């Protein structure tokens, strides 16, 4: 009966309304057999924290195109951490339009991978499979 599934939250913080990339990633993870909680556009850090908590996800993936990642992502991580969902117990990654120079700051925040616009969905699926915490 025991049937462990990888649960992933795919969230889109910030004000830009383009979620095509996020949806492509959500579908790729679904097609890889994962359960993907998709929450739509314009997510506040608070909303993402609540979704991560209530859905008890193993993985949080953030997509951003607006360029506001350095302002928004620390707040997202904090909102998650306040609720017990932290890079120490949950796999965080992000993707979108993110300059190379910003990657070290994002790693320091706890993001284990940063995927640029050219990343293939296969890379993302493989990354999640490889790094998700082994089921307890």
């Amino acid at each position, binding site marked *: 009966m025991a049937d462990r599934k990888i649960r992933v939250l795919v969230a889109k913080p910030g004000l830009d309304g383009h979620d095509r990339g996020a949806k492509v990633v959500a579908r790729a993870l679904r097609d890889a057999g994962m359960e993907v909680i998709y929450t*739509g556009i314009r997510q506040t850090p608070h909303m993402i924290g609540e979704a991560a908590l209530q859905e008890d996800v193993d993985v949080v993936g953030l997509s951003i195109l607006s360029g506001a990642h350095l302002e928004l992502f620390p707040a997202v991580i904090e909102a998650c951490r306040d609720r017990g969902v932290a890079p120490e117990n949950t796999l965080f990654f992000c993707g979108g339009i993110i300059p190379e120079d910003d990657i070290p700051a994002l790693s320091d925040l706890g993001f284990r991978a940063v995927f640029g616009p050219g990343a293939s969905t296969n890379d993302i699926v493989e990354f999640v499979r490889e790094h998700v915490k082994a089921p307890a």
Partner: protein
Amino acid sequence: MPPSGSLQARFLEGDRRALARLITEVENGTEAGRAALRALYRRAGRARTIGITGPPGAGKSTLTNQFAKALRARGQTVGIIAVDPSSPYTQGAILGDRVRMQELSSDPEIFMRSLASRGALGGLSAATLDVIAVLDAFGKDTILIETVGAGQDEVEIAGAAQTTVLVNTPGSGDDIQAMKAGIMEIADVLAVNKADLPGADLLVSQLRALLSLLPDRAWTPPIVKLIATEEVGIDDLVTACDDHWEFLASSGRLREQREERARHQILTLARSQLLAGLMDDEGGGGRLDHLTRAVADGELDPHTAAREWIDQEALA
């Protein structure tokens, strides 16, 4: 008492993260989940449960969002379960009902959980009743359960929830014919959502006509017009559900329902455990392979094969 600091202890203290984790354990059928259920079912049974079902895109999530807010305005705490289908090919799922419920995240007294159907037919997942019990034991006053959108076969909800709301929308004229008595019979409340679109009144009269074809019952489902996106009609919906609850309580149906649910749960679990026992048994899978070939070769009929499989396991 569970040891302090344990998942169950934290759950009993009202820790929402423990609640979220327990739902995962229960959904995955782990030993920790089963152990928790043994304790928690005794604490459950207090919550009211309301199922929201209807075709894809009818506005179930939008309506559930408004329903939850209306219940909160009445001082109730709320649990929400929303089920979406798993892909039969990959077993993966996209659970998207939160999109319409974002505003609820500002209220810590509302706990919303998305579940994948994981192969179950009928609009729910196999663990849904257990997850309802967990939210109930956590102390939620009312639990709203949004089914997979289907409109035909999602009848499981009628057995799982005390009150079933069937959501319909105008402009689905042909669907109404296709909808037939089957799904109508499980509805305790008929919601006509998207009443801002043309055809709402026509739909109301069609539903009324369909209802009149059903055999007489002690409860006649009220028909409620709604515009969920504009918060129109939500109070009427809450009132209709309250009226149904009064009917259940005063008629003794509530107790009958509870027993029906218990029996159904026992039978379902017994069936799956028996089968799992047969499969797990040493050599059970091998004997099944052997019988499979015999039936495929036309040497044995499937009825005898099933009988033999069970009997041999019993001997083994």
